[in-house]
């Protein structure tokens, strides 16, 4: 087996300090292979979001190592971390985090703007991403004027505009009804299959979890079980 894209060893995360300290992750090991889709499942408060934030380099672990592509991420500078998140990761959250007043196109191209891509190229790539999600006719609309399902599709377009290697999704369908949720799931797995983008999905939804290559169950800050280990 090729070396994993992300490799986690003995991961600890403690929030707060002293008597208020709370150990959210208690020594977790995990390997994610290139092109894999993974579901992180578990009860509320078990530490799923905490794990995802650490994997996505949004937060630093209290102890333990996270290796990305063979690089120890604790060695990366703030600038390198920013660049990695900007170029290699895409984010989909339960809440949409769209700028309500800005146009759909501006929302989708935000990561490119942050990366310093010229306006012309931003527009071209933004329109292509919107077309992929069948939203190109809404490019000029205000983000506020879209339906919930459309908004989540805009968020996915934003997550894949920089052609990321991993899309992190925290409860991507939590805010949507079953039918729209299914559409969004289809889009995500389609991206995974066709473009080989890794998926790391935090979810309560058993159906969504079962569509992933692998599910890990988190209980009290530890991995309680692996399911559907990749063939």
């Amino acid at each position, binding site marked *: 087996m090729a070396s994993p894209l992300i490799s986690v060893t003995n991961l600890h995360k403690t929030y707060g300090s002293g008597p208020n300290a709370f150990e959210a992750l208690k020594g977790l090991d995990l390997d994610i292979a290139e092109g894999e889709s993974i579901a992180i499942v578990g009860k509320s408060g078990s530490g799923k979001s905490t794990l995802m934030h650490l994997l996505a380099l*949004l937060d630093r672990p209290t102890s333990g190592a996270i290796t990305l592509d063979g690089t120890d991420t604790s060695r990366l500078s703030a600038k390198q971390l920013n660049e990695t998140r900007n170029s290699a990761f895409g984010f989909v959250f339960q809440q949409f985090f769209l700028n309500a007043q800005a146009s759909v196109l501006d929302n989708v191209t935000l990561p490119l703007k*942050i990366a310093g891509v010229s306006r012309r190229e931003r527009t071209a790539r933004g329109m292509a991403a919107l077309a992929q999600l069948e939203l190109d006719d809404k490019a000029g609309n205000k983000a506020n004027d879209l339906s919930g399902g459309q908004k989540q599709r805009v968020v996915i377009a934003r997550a894949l505009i920089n052609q990321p290697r991993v899309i992190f999704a925290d409860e991507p369908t939590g805010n949507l009804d079953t039918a729209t949720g299914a559409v969004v799931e289809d889009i995500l797995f389609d991206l995974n299959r066709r473009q080989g983008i890794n998926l790391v999905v935090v979810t309560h939804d058993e159906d969504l979890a079962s569509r992933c290559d692998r599910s890990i169950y988190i209980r009290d800050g530890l991995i309680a079980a692996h399911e559907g280990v990749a063939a």
Partner: protein
Amino acid sequence: MKAVDIVGTAFRNAFRSRLRTSLTVLAIFIGAFTLSLTNGLGTGINQYIDDTVASVGVDDVMTVTKASETAPTDGGPAEYDPNQIAADGPPGSTVSALNDDDIDTIAGIDGVLSVLPTKSVMTDYVQYDDGTRYQLSMAQFVPGMKVELAAGEQVDLDADEAQLVLPESYLEPLGLGTADDAVGQTVTLAVTDATGTRTTTDAIVVGVAEPGLITMGGAIPNDALTETLYDLQAAGAPESKPTQYAQASVWFDADAGEEETQALQDRLEAAGYTGSTLEDQLGTITSVIDAIVLVLNGFAVIALIAAGIGIVNTLFMAVQERTREVGLMKAMGLSSARVFSLFSIEAVVIGLAGSALGVLAAIGVGELVGSVSGSLLANLPGLTLIAFDPVSVAVVVLSVMAIAFLAGTLPALRAARQDPISSLRYE
């Protein structure tokens, strides 16, 4: 993120909450408007004084008086000096008189090209063609000064005949007709001599002066006229009493530069005299105006500081509102430094909007006041009450932007320090 994108985004963000931004801009507007107006007032008046100095054209002449040695430095009363005479200045002020020895001493000072004692003359009245008599004083600035003329020409200093330039306001009362008619006419001047006898002499009107700062002092005589009047006035005075002059005019080399002029003034001072150029004399007015403008500017700056606190408030609200947006952008790799510049540029944009509008409004009001005051201050033609020079306008706009930037730093720092995860968790 590219610089253009940062500025563009900051610009758009500034006007996302229109009402709130407009109110802050209004506060800055008021401060910048006041500051520009008070500055403009100072510029306008000082420019007028400068123009006057320039048009007089006697930058190589210095007025020299005897320094009053008895004047105490603590502002208390000065001891009586039997030599002091009324000075040509505010009523009641005196200076020690100069005598012929003093004139010789001054002439010997290095850098003095020539010296001429100013003979102060007092006329009783002026009359034309046996008409009504009017009081007339002789302007005693410096020989050779030029004034704005409505007609005719400046007095000829070397001429043997008695000449004078008459202020325009005398034409009608004296019955001289238009300015052109008046030129070449002869008027009669009366003086009282030392024995109390009144005598008269004639002088030719060679020019008519426009109203202005200088001609508020009266008519301008040539040397021949001054001599005549002085002799008439001195007739019958006891021989023993030495001739005394309130002041003397000293010619120097103005091209030698300011430092040389200053050195000459220092040498005069060392010899016990005070020398002041016309620029110095009018400079006193300028510095009073500068002081007043400074105080007014102080009030405007206080208004601007209050407006700056408004910016702090506005931006704190904006940072609060956009907590999640900032968190998301940081998650997507936007650096803290860029987040800081986004918010501080937003503050600068607000400052720019307020100050630009304020300055424009002040210029508009200046124009308006200019056209109204033109008729109110007809005695001072050429006076633009509120004038704007590009440098001070730029200084106002730039310093307001600097204040805005400073005001923006606190909220911008808060935004820059935000942790992306807690921002994303923020409800």
